[in-house]
């Protein structure tokens, strides 16, 4: 049996199990749920977790292979790779120190060398992550000046809605009626539109899932092999 058939068969069997659990579990016979599904499902999900853990290992190996090659061969931006691998080693060491160092009382913060990991996370990593994401605010503001223009009826309607929502987001403006308008826009128009969108997306997901389950979908994995 070739690889493609093994993958297709595994996907098919796995899919059948979950279809059975969802369709007849708890409805047909309660005992079936308690005796079979409740015992098989944890084993099943543990297998998926083990596969997931392998993926983390593969990711770590991959990072080291890619970046050591870049450094050794002096490819462009090799300096960045040194920083990345150094940060990796530092965090790895701090994590081990946290694990093996003096443990505080439950619910108390880690201190001393055991607290280095938490210190780096809360004082450096957290702020770097937040900073990167906050750049979006600057890009959006710049775009607002140059691109958010009312050039017709459609863009006018969108802009009207946007202005109401934006004004209602700043309580300092002191337009209490805007909160009412926004609440109605949210719960009447937005909820309805997003429900319709969700139905559409889920129908699409079901279609793709069935195609993958039955092996009709020519995914990248099948094509590659």
């Amino acid at each position, binding site marked *: 049996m070739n690889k493609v058939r093994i993958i297709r068969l595994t996907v098919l069997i796995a899919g059948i199990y979950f279809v059975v659990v969802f369709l007849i579990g708890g409805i047909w016979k309660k005992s079936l749920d308690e005796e079979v599904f409740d015992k098989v499902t944890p084993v099943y999900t543990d297998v998926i977790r083990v596969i*997931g853990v392998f993926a983390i290992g593969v990711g770590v190996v991959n990072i080291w292979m890619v970046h050591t090659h870049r450094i050794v061969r002096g490819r462009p931006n090799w300096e960045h790779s040194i920083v990345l691998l150094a940060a990796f080693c530092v965090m790895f060491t701090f994590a081990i120190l946290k694990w093996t160092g003096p443990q505080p009382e439950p619910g108390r913060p880690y201190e001393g060398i055991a607290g280095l990991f938490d210190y780096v996370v809360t004082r450096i990593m957290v702020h770097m992550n937040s900073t990167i*994401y906050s750049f979006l605010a*600057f890009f959006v503001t710049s775009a607002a*000046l140059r691109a958010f223009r*009312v050039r017709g009826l459609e863009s006018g309607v969108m802009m009207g809605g946007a202005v109401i929502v934006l004004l209602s987001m700043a309580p300092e403006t002191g337009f209490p009626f805007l909160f009412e308008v926004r*609440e109605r826009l949210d719960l009447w128009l937005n909820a309805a539109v*997003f429900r319709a969108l969700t139905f559409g997306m889920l129908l699409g997901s079901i279609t793709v899932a069935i195609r993958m389950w039955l092996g009709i979908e020519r995914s990248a994995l099948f094509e590659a092999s």
Partner: protein
Amino acid sequence: MAETKRGIGHKVFDAIDRVNYRVVYIALAVLLAVPFIFGHWEVKPRPRAITRGFFNAIEECAESGKPVFLLNTWIMDSRGENQPQFECLVDHLMRRRVKFVMLSFFADTAIVGREICQKTEAYYKKLYGDDYLQYGRDWLMIGYRPVYQTGGWQTWVPNMKTKGIVGSFDKDYMGHDLTEYPIMQRPESALQEEAERRAKEGKDEEPEGEAEPYLQLGDFGLVIEIHYTAQIAPVLTGLVRLDKDLVGLDGRPKIEMASATVNMVVNQMLPYYDSGDLCGILAGVQGAVEYSELLQDTYGTGPSREDVSRRANAYSMGVLFVLFVIVLGNLSMVWKTLHERREARGGS
């Protein structure tokens, strides 16, 4: 000659159109920094129904004594919006001494969340004495579990149903057995409820073996998810819907569920609120400031108030500046269009 016809207005709008993006960035940065440098100011938002629903659900837990399950699925990228929400919620839970069990799907969120809980706990201990709150009795942190990276919700949700919390996670963030903590013991009322349910189903009065002694999903009064993407959101409903015992005859979940999320995702959560699956939503910083207002009105100032107000002020400044530049850009466009038309007609 054409140059001389162009007035001051044209020059101003021309300059606005050609303004360097760095100027816009600096102006925004200065405005956002104002509340952090010169101090915050109090605002009086009108809490929306979605925020009130959230607040009332926690109040009901405080009345009934049922614990809350807090899922921290936000990340540091969305910290600006999710952190004030988290601060408000922990403030409310600890102030009302509602027991809560917290779980994080991301490593940094687990640490930041724990620090906020510890600070809030210290604040109330200082106020009401050391016995007011206690880790393991009133709150518990399971810690970071790489659910997202190891198979996703598909593995975690069924496990919660079949093994319960203790069976699914075993230990807290420090590696202590969950069974050691009093908060994980099933409340007497929950055991009674289960006995009544079994009797109703016609099962033997004494269940086979011993009744489950540790906290089960159905024992929680409220499941809260603080998240940054709608992909995670269906976990809330999926978690409950997978367990048929937790869904009523009308198809609605028997456990209250609430979502705190960023403004961008709120629209995708509203259908769940509209259908009754969610009892409340906290929408971005605005939701947090509305929640803080409810806390302030009901119980007075707490440890979360200042930080939430400061972030809300910065957010308002940013929003108003975006509005300002939109208006400016459109005025410039209108002015130029009118001017070009006038020029085409040969007018002055």
